[in-house]
């Protein structure tokens, strides 16, 4: 495990050592609810959550950590307690993402730290241990094995992250320090989210109630209601048209159509007649395959990215904001 000093825990308070740090300091949670001197930390923790919920990054005041009570380590840990007490997943999500982005900034700085080789090495170690990404420093840029890169890059929808848009040499992808760190943002976010989710929920602490109540009210603001239109996305319309014309629809096209309709709640019997015009139509085989798809495994409708790869995507403007055909026509209200 990476060996961290106080200033490192301030930057990456979600690493294992942070929890140990608190117990080492000999504080109990009750003290934070009652001790007026510690109240500032609770205020700070609350602010940290509010900032995160607004999509901003909590601004570090590194000087505040030089005191006997490193403010930012405590405020992170208390924020986690407040979030657990509120039980509001939306807030935990927003908090994790903001904290991930905060840590990302430090990680990037450390990666290119020429003066302090230890810091630079430590950041490479964090990437390796937390995300199993083997990053090598190569003059000005960083290289990552393609397989490692892909495990993370597939979570991005922006085209610049596609392998084709990267410099690829001898099995390695070349990245800047910014890109290297950006690559693991989602996992960093997930790491923090999981850590919070999996930590045990404490009993309500006296003095925390007003904060927790405020957080619950705040979370309601972020609830999303959606309506869905019944119009099919263009890829599905295309698949149906091809079949209606009696032309051959590829295996992946049939898979897309069937899984889409099954996911929309249609039955095997409702879907099967769609295939009757196919040049190789065989009612027995069609029923068998549809039953397989709707069986215990419950195949998912392929993502837009996959549909694109299979040349079955015919996007319209309403497709810009979706990543799966099933989301087509879904609107927030």
């Amino acid at each position: 495990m990476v060996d961290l000093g106080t200033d490192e825990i301030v930057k990456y308070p979600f690493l294992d050592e942070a929890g140990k740090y608190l117990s080492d300091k000999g504080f109990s949670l009750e003290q934070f609810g009652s001790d007026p001197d510690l109240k500032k930390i609770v205020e700070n923790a609350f602010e940290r959550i509010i900032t995160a919920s607004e999509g901003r990054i909590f601004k570090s005041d590194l000087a505040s950590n030089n005191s006997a009570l490193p403010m930012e380590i405590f405020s992170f840990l208390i924020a986690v307690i407040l979030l657990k007490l509120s039980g509001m997943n939306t807030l935990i999500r927003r908090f994790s993402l903001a904290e991930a982005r905060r840590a990302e900034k430090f990680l990037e700085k450390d990666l290119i730290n020429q003066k302090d080789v230890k810091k630079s090495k430590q950041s490479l170690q964090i990437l390796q241990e937390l995300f199993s990404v083997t990053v090598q420093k190569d003059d000005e840029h960083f290289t990552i094995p393609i397989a490692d890169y892909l495990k993370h890059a597939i979570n991005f929808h922006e085209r610049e992250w596609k392998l084709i848009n990267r410099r690829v040499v001898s099995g390695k992808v070349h990245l800047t320090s910014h890109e290297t760190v950006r690559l693991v943002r989602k996992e960093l976010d997930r790491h923090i989210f999981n850590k919070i989710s999996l930590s045990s929920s404490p009993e309500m602490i006296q003095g925390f109630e007003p904060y927790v109540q405020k957080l619950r009210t705040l979370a309601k603001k972020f609830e999303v209601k959606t309506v869905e239109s019944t119009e099919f996305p263009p890829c599905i319309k295309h698949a149906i048209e091809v079949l209606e014309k009696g032309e051959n629809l590829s295996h992946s096209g049939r898979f897309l159509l069937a899984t889409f309709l099954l996911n929309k709640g249609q039955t095997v019997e409702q879907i099967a007649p769609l295939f009757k015009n196919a040049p190789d139509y065989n009612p027995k085989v069609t029923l068998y395959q549809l039953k397989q798809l709707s069986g215990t495994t419950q195949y998912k409708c392929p993502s837009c990215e996959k549909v694109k790869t299979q040349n079955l995507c015919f996007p319209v403007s309403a497709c810009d904001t979706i990543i799966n055909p099933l989301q087509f026509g879904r609107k927030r209200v």
Partner: protein
Amino acid sequence: MNEKDVILLEDTFKKFYFDHFELLHVPENSIQREFGFQKFNGGMNRHISLKSDKELHLLLMQNKPSDVYCSNACYSFPNLPMSEKNWLNADLIFDIDAKDVTKKNQPENTLIKCSDCNEISNLTNSCPNCKSTKLAIITLTSSESIQSTKDEVKKLNQILIDELGVNPESIKIFFSGNEGFHIYVPKSEYQNIGSKERAEIVDYIMFRGAIPETFGIKKFDLNKSIFPKFDDGGWNGRIAKQLYRIKSDRSKVSQEIISGGYTLFQKRLEEFRHKIGIQIDPNVTIDIHRIFRLPGSINSKSGLVKIFVENINKFDPYTDACFIDDEKVDVHANCPISFTLKNTKFGPYNNETVSVPKFSAIYMICKGIASST
């Protein structure tokens, strides 16, 4: 397929297997692979587990299969249903098929078979007999299309080695037994990656999804664009060669690109995709639960064998993968164009009974253009 044809094919295939057990081996980690086979006029039997070559040979003798398959994936429990197999890893495999490389069917080696009236005729858009447009395409031997498919395989290999860092020794090329090649990359660092990651590798190889920025275009400050150099590695170099044609034209062409603008360049990239993207079958590489024709087995679409290719330059599938003997057989053939097997030209046959070597008879029956008399 009629009963007589089935018996002829079953007996011929069985004889081939009996005589050539040395070509048929279970792959490494056989115990973790899923095997499958099909019988003539029968459905697919999957989720089979085989431990040794002996068990494989027994399966071939007992079942007289038309086609035999083996997964590229390894599972904890290969013989359980898909959802319970527990996927462990899979060899990276590419499929390059002549029909994807040549893009357009050539009348010299293509026939159509009407799905409504079964009429076989030269390549047209509708059945000359009943005007139906439900047509199955039948392609016969073509040394030109095999040559361009081989060229595509070589281009793929270069990318695998130079860009994807694959050890040249570990790339194994197989003739698919019909009209293409399967390129296996076993035990590479890509062994553990999933379907989505493989889709990215596919897009890379096919040159799909490239954006102008990758080639130095600055969308909002075109004059500051820095274009790739002729000698750059990877797609940068390949695109530079397409763009400048000759090295010294870089600055001239760069100016043209700048005055043409972002959208025009984007369109050109799209054209290059069709022109220089490697024409692999994306689905084959992306599917990590697929079963592939077993090397050494006969492809029932042609009667040719899926065979290891030692030297792609010298390889001739129409002789090297044709293992059936030349004993004369009478068949009723309907083949309006000619084809060449084992350096012998056959056809055209106009709905007539002909006496041909067995390898040619089997080829035509497999292609659906002849049947036993």
